[in-house]
């Protein structure tokens, strides 16, 4: 049995490695795209943060004559630029992004304050703006400072002169936030999801490229017709091809792991303190465990794309069918981004999703139940085996070999 599998495996591997385009694509996708995209995303995030603090925000004040002191406070604020907008047009100007925020001061504001009552100043901004939170923070800073000054005067008037007494009076019960999550657990949730998605997507791509050429491509070229009349059992042909697809997927995954590791090492010297802190906590044992998760998932992906490629009548049909199937795989992988879903219970048995969640937990450093690893690996391999048996059964059908 081994000889037929080995002969087909070696031939297909040799042929696939001679496909220059496929090899270049493999190194480009795994070696450059993953770390480059990651680096770009981080740089972009840093730049956005920087840019937001430097941007001058245009704003307007309706009813400025009603509280001149507050207006002075806004004029003294750096990074704000007041523009003139008619009272009735303020909301529209904010919505149309002519200005980032506006204040509307009521007519009798100064009189009301003098009488010791409270004043409601409208702060108008667009919550749909991606920087809405930052705009609100910067836009209300002068308002809060003005309000605090007013409060202090009133407290002084009431005889509460010391700052400490004022604090006790205003906040009789204060609280201090104590976070039990480490930086790794906190950041690891998002980072783990991204790593899981990147690894599994690249792994699936590697399997797909190989499977398209080795089965649907052979059907189209007419080489499969000749191969099936060789005195080799069909299951050996299927297994030989499966192994090449598996190896390709694993090579893609391993190269991605290497390039991702290299990028993470780079980030430890160039990234922010938190990212550096998280990365340096990941142990070599966890990296190895991370890589081992890719073995069963590659086995599953290889069986899945082989089944689809076997069923398809041409390269083109295989491409479109695999694309549809890959959307399902992507949805299963994206479970790792959903808060509240964990490896407990049913999810540990859902193929692909369980591995995605496992990778996330590994990156977070919260994978403590190693018996669940066994159930994940066995359920994944079981599904892979079923798909492989499907492919073998289909390979025996002449309507599948001659679907033209």
């Amino acid at each position, binding site marked *: 049995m081994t000889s037929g599998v080995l002969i087909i495996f070696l031939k297909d591997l040799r042929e696939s490695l001679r496909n220059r385009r496929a090899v270049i694509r493999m190194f480009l996708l795994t070696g450059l795209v993953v770390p480059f995209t990651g680096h770009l995303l981080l740089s972009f995030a840093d730049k956005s943060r920087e840019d937001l603090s430097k941007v001058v925000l245009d704003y307007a004040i309706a009813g400025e004559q009603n509280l001149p002191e507050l207006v002075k406070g806004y004029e003294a604020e750096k990074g704000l630029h007041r523009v003139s907008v008619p009272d009735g047009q303020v909301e529209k100007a904010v919505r149309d992004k002519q200005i980032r925020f506006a204040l509307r001061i009521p007519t009798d504001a100064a009189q009301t304050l003098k009488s010791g009552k409270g004043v409601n100043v409208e702060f108008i901004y667009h919550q749909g703006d991606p920087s809405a939170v930052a705009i609100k923070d910067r836009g209300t800073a002068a308002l809060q400072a003005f309000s605090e000054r007013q409060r202090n005067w009133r407290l002084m008037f009431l005889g509460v002169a010391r700052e400490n007494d004022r604090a006790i009076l205003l906040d009789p019960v204060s609280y201090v936030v104590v976070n039990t999550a480490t930086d790794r657990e906190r950041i690891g949730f998002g980072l783990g999801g991204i790593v899981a998605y990147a690894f599994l997507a690249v792994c699936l791509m590697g399997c797909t490229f190989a499977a398209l050429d080795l089965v649907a491509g052979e059907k189209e*070229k*007419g*080489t499969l017709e000749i191969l099936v009349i060789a005195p080799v059992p069909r299951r050996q042909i299927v297994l030989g091809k499966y192994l090449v697809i598996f190896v390709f997927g694993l090579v893609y995954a391993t190269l991605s792991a290497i390039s991702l590791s290299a990028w993470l090492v780079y980030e430890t010297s160039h990234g922010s303190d938190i990212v550096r802190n998280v990365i340096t906590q990941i142990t070599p044992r966890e990296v190895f465990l991370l890589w081992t998760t890719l073995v069963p998932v590659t086995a599953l992906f290889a069986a899945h794309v082989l089944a689809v490629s076997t069923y398809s009548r041409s390269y083109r049909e295989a491409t479109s069918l695999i694309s549809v199937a890959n959307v399902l795989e992507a949805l299963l992988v994206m479970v790792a981004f959903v808060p509240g879903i964990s490896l407990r219970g049913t999810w540990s048995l859902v193929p692909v999703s369980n591995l995605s969640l496992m990778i996330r937990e590994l990156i977070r450093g919260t994978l403590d139940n190693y018996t669940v690893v066994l159930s994940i690996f066995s359920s994944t391999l079981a599904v892979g085996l079923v798909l492989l048996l499907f492919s073998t059964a289909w390979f025996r059908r002449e309507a599948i070999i001659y679907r033209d």
Partner: protein
Amino acid sequence: MLEVKSLGKTFPLKRRKGKNTAAGDPREHGMLFHALRNVSFNLRRGEIVGLLGANGAGKTTLMRILATSLQPTSGRVSLLGFDIVKDAGEVRQRVGFLSGGTGLYNRLSPHELLQFYGELYGIPRGRLRSRIESLVEELGMGGFAHRPIDGLSAGMKQRVSIARSLVHSPELVIFDEPTTGLDVPTAQIILNHIESCRNEGKTVIFSTHHMHEIEKLCDEVVLIHEGVSRFQGTVAQMKSRANCVHLDDAYLALTGEGNPSALDRVESRPRKVGAL
């Protein structure tokens, strides 16, 4: 050596919506297409047999069944006493098949391709090396045996395909239109090789639309028309049966293909799954 008895092959029909298929095609029955019906013939060792028939007559289906890539729906085929279905493994060791569309691995060299198939057929390494060398020499492949197949001409590729079908020294060789689309010198090399197969005691079945090839090479002719075997005998017997001087006239007379209404029927046949 080869015994074909009441062979039948049926495919499920794949009808096209809104298009009427030819009325009265005797091979259609409901959603089934009877590609071959009750085909019987016998071949002796060392014979070259020409398979004649129009496009879609059932020649390729017959050859695929003989090569074991398709299974018969009815009837029985035995090669050297081995049943083509029950003893498929034994039959495969003894059959070489050249398909219509040259199926080659373009990123391998002819030498590597022959090595691959030789290993699949379980030929010991030493014997395989000498077998490849002799095929390379016989088919004039010395100049391109180590070049990637992708860069070879159609004639070179066809020679590689023939070498591939012969690498395991089969006793029955099946060639599906081996000279189609080839220039005269290349076609000649291939025809010479088919003739040399007879000298080696091999039985050759080849399909062709070139009547001169049949007249030049074949000991016997099997004529398939609309899935039925219409004639088996020598070229002379075929001419005599149709009472014609030329073989192509005899072919037209025996099949009725010269009749335009019959031709229309052939061209408007519905598509069927798994057959040409």
